[in-house]
């Protein structure tokens, strides 16, 4: 064979350890992208075999069968058959099977064999299989399948040696291609049974440890208690570890901006660099630690096999509002920030359920709303005890969080009623064995997601931040102007223009104006209000701002603004990530439109009712 690169495709059932094997083979040298036009991830890596040949490895999505029910499976099939546009058929297929779950996985191996292409079978998780006393007669399996069979332990260093030696050698002969029809399909199970009887001896069907853990984790009472404890821990960690790092990054950029400013002459260029680029980038990068902490926990839960259990416990509840058990974790993540939440919907296999989850995720109260809530509640809600034990301010905050959740449920339910396609979408979810997460796989997963966030989002956000800066800076105030410079800028005009829309909600022009930067990042509304009310110290001195606010707005306006923030279509990073994950501006328009409508109606009602009552 020539020195040309050999293309190898990794395929297998979900939960066969394929990704761990891929990481083992390629290390960090991998390229993650999407297949053109869809959000199915395409992962490719390469490594040099001992013979010096370059091997290019494509990690295909996990697949149960070629009877494609999801876009992932369709792509897997098309790539293997060489029918995927822009993708050459692989020279060799490595079919990965979990040695502890051969009854299910061998059937897919047989399906792959029928493609009539060279196949190598990698029996993965051989360590776990031995531990459970499973004995596999590999030479006999190899003879009966007519393809090379190698043992691998993807999670152990050097666990893929045998596989590397195999793929580095001669390409095995392919079995003759066979037609794919329902009749022969049913026959596959009979073949699997025959193969298992002849080559595998299994003392018991499941691992004792899984049975023991599931007895607790899926218990109707203890299971839910455990789930609540896990959620609580994740939340705490995001706040405890993510927040200080986020603040540090924000401060770091402010400091850098200050230094950059010192070296620049006064003028618009300096404004752009300090207020536009550095402040904007600081805000964007500030999200990163929280996102990474959150993804760390999600990856740990994913790798350990707990995530499907959580989905199992909550499926019924989520189904009643048009979602699925799998929507739970992305929605939970959205309490920190909707961006990782929406990115996390990739684990929802069904496209319709995934879209619904993406559309309701921004309604979860993200951490960026908190500064706004804190400011307004502090300024307008008296510090009073209710029923002796509850703090009124805390109750209002809780009500706002609850409003987000109830709103999301109502929207999910509405989407369910409105969609034309009422067909049944299955849960059909495998609950894999529990596993200890491997640090390397978690690290690679974190790296991938972090890079995706940085690369794709910084561009959009940077551009919009610069635009924001431009409209709030130009045109400059005329000579002898007394008000803040922002009054005379485009943003000032826009703010006054917006009053026509927002006056029925009780918003004055200053509030309307602060909604513009809030669209870039919600927490900046606080700073923007501080600027227009020309309060010294800005965000650092929110007590001064509280007084200014209390003097300028009514309670009705404040409550209306709180409700607006609970539902309003913000921020633009969220809309950008919806665009990226769904690849459709239409979905962005739907998300923006419905949230605007809900926020407007809810804030209007709040304002009018409060005014009537007070």
């Amino acid at each position: 064979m020539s020195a040309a690169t050999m293309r190898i495709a990794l395929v297998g059932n979900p939960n066969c350890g394929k990704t761990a094997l891929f990481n083992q083979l390629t290390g960090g040298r991998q390229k993650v992208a999407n297949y053109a036009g869809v959000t199915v991830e395409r992962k490719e890596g390469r490594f040099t075999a001992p013979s010096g040949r370059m091997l290019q490895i494509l990690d295909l999505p996990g697949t149960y069968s070629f009877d494609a029910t999801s876009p992932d499976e369709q792509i897997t099939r098309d790539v293997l058959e060489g029918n995927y546009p822009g993708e050459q058929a692989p020279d060799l297929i490595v079919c990965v099977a979990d040695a502890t779950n051969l009854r299910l996985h061998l059937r897919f191996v047989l399906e792959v064999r029928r493609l009539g292409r060279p196949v190598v079978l990698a029996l993965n998780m051989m360590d776990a299989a031995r531990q459970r006393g499973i004995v596999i007669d590999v030479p006999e399996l190899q003879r009966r399948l007519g393809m090379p069979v190698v043992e691998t332990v993807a999670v152990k260093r050097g666990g893929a040696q045998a596989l590397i030696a195999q793929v580095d050698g001669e390409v095995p002969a392919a079995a003759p291609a066979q037609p794919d029809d329902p009749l022969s399909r049913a026959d596959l199970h009979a073949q699997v049974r025959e193969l298992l009887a002849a080559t595998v001896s299994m003392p018991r069907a499941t691992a004792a440890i899984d049975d023991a853990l599931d007895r607790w984790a899926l218990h109707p009472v203890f299971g839910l208690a455990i789930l609540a404890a896990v959620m609580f821990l994740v939340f705490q960690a995001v706040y405890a570890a993510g927040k200080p790092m986020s603040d540090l990054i924000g401060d770091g950029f402010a400091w850098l901006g200050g230094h950059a400013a010192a070296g620049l002459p006064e003028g618009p260029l300096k404004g752009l660099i300090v207020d536009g680029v550095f402040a904007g980038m600081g805000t964007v990068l500030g999200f990163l630690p929280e996102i990474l902490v959150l993804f760390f926990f999600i990856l740990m839960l994913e790798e350990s096999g707990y995530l499907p259990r959580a989905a199992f416990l909550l499926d019924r509840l989520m189904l009643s509002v048009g979602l699925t058990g799998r929507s739970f974790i992305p929605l939970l993540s959205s309490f920190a920030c909707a961006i990782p939440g929406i990115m996390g919907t990739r684990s929802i296999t069904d496209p319709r359920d995934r879209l619904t989850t993406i559309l309701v995720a921004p309604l979860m109260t993200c951490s960026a709303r908190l500064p706004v809530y804190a400011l307004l509640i502090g300024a307008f809600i008296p510090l009073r005890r209710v029923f002796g034990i509850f703090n009124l301010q805390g109750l209002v905050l809780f009500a706002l969080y609850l409003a987000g959740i109830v709103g999301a449920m109502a929207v999910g339910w509405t989407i369910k009623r409105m969609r034309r396609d009422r067909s049944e979408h299955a849960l059909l979810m495998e609950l894999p064995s529990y596993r200890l997460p491997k640090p390397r796989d978690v690290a690679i997963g974190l790296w991938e997601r972090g890079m995706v966030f940085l690369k794709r989002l910084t561009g959009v956000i940077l551009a919009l931040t610069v635009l924001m800066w431009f409209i709030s800076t130009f045109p400059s105030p005329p000579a002898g102007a007394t008000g803040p410079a922002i009054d005379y800028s485009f943003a000032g005009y826009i703010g006054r223009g917006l009053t026509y829309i927002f006056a029925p909600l009780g918003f004055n022009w200053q509030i309307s104006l602060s909604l513009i930067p809030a669209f870039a990042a919600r927490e900046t509304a606080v700073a923007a209000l501080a600027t227009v009310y020309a309060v010294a110290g800005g965000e650092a001195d929110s007590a001064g701002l509280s007084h200014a606010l209390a003097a300028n707005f009514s309670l009705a306006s404040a409550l209306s603004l709180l409700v607006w923030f609970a539902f309003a279509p913000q921020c633009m990073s969220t809309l950008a990530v919806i665009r990226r994950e769904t690849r459709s501006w239409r979905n962005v328009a739907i998300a923006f439109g419905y949230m605007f409508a809900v926020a407007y109606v809810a804030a209007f009602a709040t304002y009018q009712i409060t005014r009537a009552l007070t």
Partner: protein
Amino acid sequence: MVDRVDDAQTADPIAQRLRDLGFVQGEPVRVVATGPLGGDPLLIQIGSTRFALRRSEAARVLVSTEAAA
């Protein structure tokens, strides 16, 4: 023990998927756990694999009880 999987409608993809996952005649199955709300979904063990099925999905699988515990 599974008897057969029936299509809820013609060319039912869920029934086809169930058959692909190994719900075929003669395969022993067992309910391992039920969900906390209204006993839905069900956790079904077939071979060494566990699947969460909603009751409406599981209704497609016709089973017959054997003497086995």
